[in-house]
């Protein structure tokens, strides 16, 4: 077994009776881009603060290369961090901001100068060295913050929702910058966000938090294609849920009866269900189409509304039992003729792409 890099071991954090983090354990290999994803209050930021040293965990340990960090004060942990809000030092220029961590480490002037130039080049702000933070846009400020956090070559970079204060276009632009910088520097990044698209776009792996626990950890594709729970399926990507009754499971393929009485077979079950148990069938809007394919299951629906978005079409359907279904056929299954509003239509999906979760 290789020596581990960053280990978060059974970290638990309570505030009075409230448990913010329940025994979270993660192994992070060197160079990984790991995202803590989850709704606000799910414990992802608290876990990050425990690594940064802003909060001492109630129990558990955080180890970097097999040495515990907990006894080390924040300013000696040698960790880089980019914050949610703009945290540039308002009294210092851009270059002085980037030089700050080096100057408190008493590095020689020549090295500081060279490093500041390198870092500003890395975030492409060479021409802004003498500006003051107040004269920068939000995106520029976060890029300087990134340069400052990387200036002392920290082994780990923590990012706490760094893009949440930026508008959408800027967010995408800086996401690309972060990806490039991760590629170029190879730094290990722990990234906190509540935006699933951001997580999918940036990360090697995603740890999805719910109520202080890790609900599922894996690559973005794992979470999307093989969600471990209804919460994961609902949080990552879009999904439709239909109430159903479990009939039987044979050879890993489950059969259910939907509310309108139709039977669907060949489904993937998240766990073992008993006969007659109430379950929920999840199917992604992209997995639904208006034309039958091979091995398709069919649903009888009324088409309520259709909308055209250029690269795709969105259809809103409703089952006889009143459940609304969002349908976003992928381009090869667009069927303009079948997309007209009206009753007595059918939509199709591959049962292998659908999941069953406990109700």
């Amino acid at each position, binding site marked *: 077994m290789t020596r581990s890099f960053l280990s978060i071991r059974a970290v638990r954090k309570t505030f009075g009776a409230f448990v913010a983090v329940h025994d979270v354990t993660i192994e992070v290999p060197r160079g990984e881009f790991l995202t803590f994803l989850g709704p606000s209050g799910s414990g992802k930021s608290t876990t990050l603060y425990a690594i*940064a040293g*802003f909060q001492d965990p109630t129990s558990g340990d955080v180890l970097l290369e097999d040495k515990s960090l907990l006894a080390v*004060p*924040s*300013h*000696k*942990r*040698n*960790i*880089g*961090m980019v*914050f*949610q*809000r*703009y*945290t*540039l*030092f*308002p*009294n*210092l220029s851009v270059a002085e901001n980037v030089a*700050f*961590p080096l100057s*408190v*480490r008493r590095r020689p002037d020549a090295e500081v100068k060279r490093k500041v130039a390198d870092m500003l080049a890395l975030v492409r702000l060479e021409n802004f060295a003498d500006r*003051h933070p107040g004269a920068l846009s939000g995106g520029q400020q976060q890029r300087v*913050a990134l340069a*400052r*956090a990387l200036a*002392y070559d920290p082994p780990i970079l923590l990012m706490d929702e760094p893009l949440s204060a930026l508008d959408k276009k800027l967010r995408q632009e800086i996401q690309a910058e972060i990806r490039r910088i991760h590629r170029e520097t190879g730094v290990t990044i722990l990234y906190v966000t509540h935006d699933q698209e951001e997580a999918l776009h940036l990360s090697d792996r995603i740890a999805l938090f719910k109520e202080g626990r890790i609900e599922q950890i894996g690559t973005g594709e794992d979470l999307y294609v093989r969600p471990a729970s209804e919460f994961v399926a609902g949080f990552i990507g879009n999904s439709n849920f239909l109430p159903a009754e479990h009939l039987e499971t044979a050879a890993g393929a489950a059969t259910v009866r939907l509310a309108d009485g139709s039977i669907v077979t060949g489904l993937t079950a998240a766990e073992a269900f008993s006969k007659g148990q109430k379950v929920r069938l999840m199917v992604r809007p992209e997995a639904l189409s208006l034309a039958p394919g091979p091995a398709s299951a069919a649903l009888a629906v009324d088409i309520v509304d259709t909308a055209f978005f250029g690269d795709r079409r969105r259809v809103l359907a409703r089952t006889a039992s009143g459940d609304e279904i969002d349908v976003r056929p992928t381009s090869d299954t667009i069927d303009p003729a079948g997309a007209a509003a009206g009753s007595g239509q059918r939509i199709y999906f591959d049962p292998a792409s659908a999941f069953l979760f406990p109700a």
Partner: protein
Amino acid sequence: MLLDYDRLGWLRVALVGFTAAVAAFLLLPVVFIVLLSFGSSRWLAFPPPGWTLKWYEQLFADPTWIDAALTSARIAAMSAVLAVVIGLFASFALVRGEFRGRQLLRGLLLTPMVLPVVVFAIAIYAFFLRIGLAGTTIGFVIAHTILALPFAIIPITAALEGFDKSIEDAAIVCGASPLQARLRITLPSIRIGIFSAAIFSFLASWDEVVVAIFMASPTLQTLPVKIWGSLRADLSPVVAAASSLLVGLTLCLMIVTALLRRKLSR
């Protein structure tokens, strides 16, 4: 439309006229006293029969006026330094601390500003009589520091509240010790608040009359006490000369403040 300056119509004429009149009312005594100090009439006739500098000559010829001014400056400077330093420490506790009774403490430290000065004046006077600090510079400085403290705490806490704590955290993550982070990042960032605190605390002591009247001794009196004494005796034009110099000082202070603020808030 009542809050659209361009759409007030005739009402705007009336309101602007009224505002100008009030501005004139506020300016009147200040300008008047300066003009009067150059007037030659012993009886403060206005407009003066002629112009003269003799009241200023008398003022500077009288060592008690100079003494009083120096005493005031000394006490105000010491009180301001003490109030700013003590207020700075207190402000960190009031803004950053998480402890029971924080609001109570804030209320307590601001009370000297609200309590009628005359109550504090006779209280501290009686107290100092007993412990032997009445009529001493130390007694003056202690009493004035207490009165100046709220004027130091208010701007510093305001500045500290407007300063994002995450910035200090960022400095610490960057490797600065908590003390380094405060000295190199936080204090420079709230310097406008500290500067305002210094000006206000200085003025709070410099202009203070009531405590000073009680505390003053024949050998130790501040400028306001000296003026108070002269006013009660007669309306000598020398007081006008002294007052005009005080107006000049205020103007200088305002200009310096405006310039420094512009420079600091760059």
